[in-house]
């Protein structure tokens, strides 16, 4: 690509980056401009990819080139999904929604048992033999899973033994939330590092 276009692109990107960062000082027209541009461009992108990555390769090409007329059925369901725009016939869109919901639930029923419940329960049925670190960890895992599940079990009042177990469950949950918070901080800072790197490496080459 011509060098000119790359330089122009980098300056444009730098301007947009700073426009959004300007929100840190306070809300202002530059930020609003960038924010709206973001939403608009993303919507434009979506429309284009829906055509080039969905409608064209999955419908138009196979129908026009290989005469897969059967695909007119999902095309019909896809189009009636859009009847939501017209209140009078909006009820038709329920057919498409019902179809997708049906597939989704059917897959979820078998998937959650085979892919989640069975392996996760199996992962909790772990050996406790010998006095060593691994056994202690395994014990902590078994207790933690049961305690957490007890905390979320509301069909029995959290009193006595159940209450104590649920309380232990909260302890585990707090540790998990703390860890998640730490990881979230990590993630957000990484994104900032990425933008700083762009501004001070790609745009103004301070970082070599």
């Amino acid at each position, binding site marked *: *690509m011509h060098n000119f276009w790359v330089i122009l692109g980098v300056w444009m990107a730098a301007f947009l980056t700073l426009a959004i960062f300007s929100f840190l000082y306070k809300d202002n027209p530059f930020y609003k401009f960038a924010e709206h541009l973001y939403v608009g461009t993303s919507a434009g992108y979506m429309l284009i990819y829906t055509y*080039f990555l969905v409608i064209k390769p999955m*419908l138009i090409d196979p129908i026009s080139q290989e005469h897969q007329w059967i695909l007119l059925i999902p095309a019909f369901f896809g189009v009636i999904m859009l009847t939501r725009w017209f209140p009078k016939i909006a009820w038709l869109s*329920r057919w498409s929604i019902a179809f997708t919901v049906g597939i989704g639930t059917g897959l979820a029923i078998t998937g959650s048992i085979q892919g989640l419940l069975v392996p996760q329960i199996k992962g909790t049925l772990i050996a406790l033999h010998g006095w060593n670190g691994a056994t202690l960890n395994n014990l*902590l895992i078994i207790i933690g899973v049961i305690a957490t*599940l007890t905390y979320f079990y509301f069909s029995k009042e959290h009193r006595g033994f159940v209450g104590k177990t649920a309380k232990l469950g909260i302890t585990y949950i707090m540790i998990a939330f703390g860890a998640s918070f730490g990881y979230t901080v990590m993630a957000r800072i990484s*994104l*900032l590092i990425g933008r700083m790197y762009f501004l001070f490496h790609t745009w103004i080459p301070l970082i070599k």
Partner: protein
Amino acid sequence: MRREIPLAITFITALIMIVSFFIPHAPFGSMQDVSLKWYSIIAGFTMLLGVDSLIHMHSVKIKRKKEGWVYSLVLILGFALFVISGTIAGIRFGSAMDIRSSFMYLYTYMIVPLQSTMFALLSFFIASAAYRAFRARNMDATLLLITAVLVMLGRVPVGYQMWHSFPAVAEWIMAVPQMAAKRGILIGVSLGSLAVSLRIMLGIERSYLS
């Protein structure tokens, strides 16, 4: 009929998925294949719904010159820019995703900085939230706070410099107590969603049709 037909569609398609899981042979296997593919195509259309309502909302704002209509104009122009450049790229290269296209250029220098900076903003807010709201008010909050600090230090190189066993401690927290709680939650959630799925399939739960 406006309710019965959708309920029947949901039940039948869900049943095909379940039966074909256990009996993947003809005719169920191919019924599953066809349904999955159709699902993907229909799902592809849902994107258009969001795009339309967005563009409609902002066009009205511009027409009526409501407050902030200039920004709506920016939104519409951004939208048009991508639609036009994508269409041109499609005509020139056969696909909008060709690396030489102006569509890809605009993506790299507009969408990338806009979206990534939008999310990078959060780093400042999370730092200020940690300063203002993260208080050891009681035992539970203290525990949460201590874990967060241990993980934050244990998962970065400086933690290793402070104390060589720091990364091991952080990894233990992640792999044992954290993991156990997440598993408990995961099992609970999946039991819940299993129940909801069954209710939807059998037509007891119908809120998705409203």
